């Protein structure tokens, strides 16, 4: 007898309670620290844009409102777990460091990376002159964003599944009516034409990838609540592409590999030219999937941020009045770009899913 996963059981489940407790604890531990000013007060729009697009160990909502995230590092002698707010800049130096009381290690935070150091603020160097860093397994902004995405997906789909069970045979109602066209769209317009016979095996993966990428893209567009640029991180998209690559390679039947190693109907003289290209293609296709998603989302974010920075650039060079004037046009452009990014969020998810389905179809194609 399977357990019904509905909204009420979700609220009562241990995992949900743990999530809520974790969120509240993190929220209470945030300190309204004074905004850290850099050593030179020069206005660098490029740095601000990069800071917003890249990963960070805290969620920086506004100047002065920081939401520190847990840091988990594995040094050679211990595993340390502390909050980002513990990093302190000592008087007289500009080194951000923290000494863990349990393991005695001192960690130094510089430019988004954590290094091992000593009490004096020097970073430990190894034999070749590189800075020694522990394994950084922290919950950074991107990881927190992925948790939020996963939680949203579980919430939506478990609710919908329970509704289907409760209303089996009846017309869909409520959230079901939102989700059903999307799932049917993926099944009928993406999976069935691309994979053909036997598409059911790949449906769970395709649906998961589609909704994960879509929700992750949308989360990156929310301005204040963190702006978690999840799919704009090439590591995340690379892992998604690796999933596609692994599933394609595992499910490749004999015809698929024969097409790569010995394409049928190709004269012998062309083989030394064609086979290396085909073999490279096996690796390049997932790599391009990864790069396409990453570049699209990051480029969109950089454009929106650049338009916003334009106001401040004008304020710095020509005066505040000009900045106010420019802000009208800039805001219109920013709104337009944000709407375009909404379209791109859906489109990139669709293209990733469609191309994955096409590769699966190629891998499992029956010989004609």
């Amino acid at each position, binding site marked *: 007898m399977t357990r019904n996963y509905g909204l009420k059981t979700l609220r009562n489940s241990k995992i949900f309670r743990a999530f809520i407790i974790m969120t509240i604890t993190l929220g209470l531990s945030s300190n309204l620290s004074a905004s850290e000013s850099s050593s030179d007060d020069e206005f660098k729009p490029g740095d601000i844009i990069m800071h917003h697009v890249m990963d960070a160990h805290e969620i920086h909502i506004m100047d002065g409102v920081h939401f520190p995230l847990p840091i988990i590092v594995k040094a050679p002698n211990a595993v340390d777990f502390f909050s980002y707010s513990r990093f302190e800049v000592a008087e007289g130096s500009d080194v951000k460091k923290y000494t863990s009381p349990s393991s005695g290690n001192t960690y130094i935070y510089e430019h988004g990376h954590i290094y091992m150091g000593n009490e004096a603020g020097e970073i430990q160097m190894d034999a070749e002159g590189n800075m020694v860093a522990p394994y950084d397994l922290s919950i950074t902004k991107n990881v927190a964003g992925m948790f939020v995405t996963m939680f949203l997906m579980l919430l939506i789909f478990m609710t919908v599944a329970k509704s289907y069970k409760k209303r089996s045979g009846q017309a869909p109602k409520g959230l079901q009516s939102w989700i059903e066209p999307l799932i049917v769209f993926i099944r009928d317009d993406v999976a069935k034409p691309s994979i053909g016979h036997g598409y059911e095996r790949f449906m769970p993966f395709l649906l998961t990838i589609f909704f994960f990428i879509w929700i992750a893209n949308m989360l990156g567009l929310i301005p204040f609540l963190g702006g978690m640029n999840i799919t704009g991180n090439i590591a995340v998209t690379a892992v998604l592409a690796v999933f596609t690559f692994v599933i394609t390679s595992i499910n490749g039947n004999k015809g698929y590999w024969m097409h790569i190693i010995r394409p049928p109907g190709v004269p012998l003289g062309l083989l030394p030219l064609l086979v290396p290209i085909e073999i490279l293609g096996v690796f390049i296709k997932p790599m391009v999937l990864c790069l396409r998603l990453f570049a*699209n989302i990051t480029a969109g974010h950089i454009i929106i941020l650049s338009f916003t920075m334009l106001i401040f650039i004008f304020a710095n060079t020509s005066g505040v009045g000009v900045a106010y004037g420019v802000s009208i046009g800039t805001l219109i452009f920013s709104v337009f770009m944000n709407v375009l990014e909404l379209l791109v969020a859906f489109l990139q998810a669709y293209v990733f899913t469609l191309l994955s389905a096409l590769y699966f179809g190629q891998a499992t194609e029956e010989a004609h």
Partner: protein
Amino acid sequence: MSLLTILLDAAIGIMGAGIGAGIAALGAGVGIGRIGGSALEAMARQPESTGDIRANMIVAAALVEGAVFFAIVLCLLVVLA
């Protein structure tokens, strides 16, 4: 020969990256413009297959954009490092 040493200047590299990004945008415009143009023509000839044509147009546009974004990312790498 002293003229060639101008190329060692990092600023020239950044200018090259800017020009490269511009050419990449040009390539995107031409490629996707042609795809859109022929798609619209086909839709005008046979209005009932508009849905099919639209889906394929979007797929082809995304593939072309993939190549363009590869060039853009390279230019960004040149500028940032």
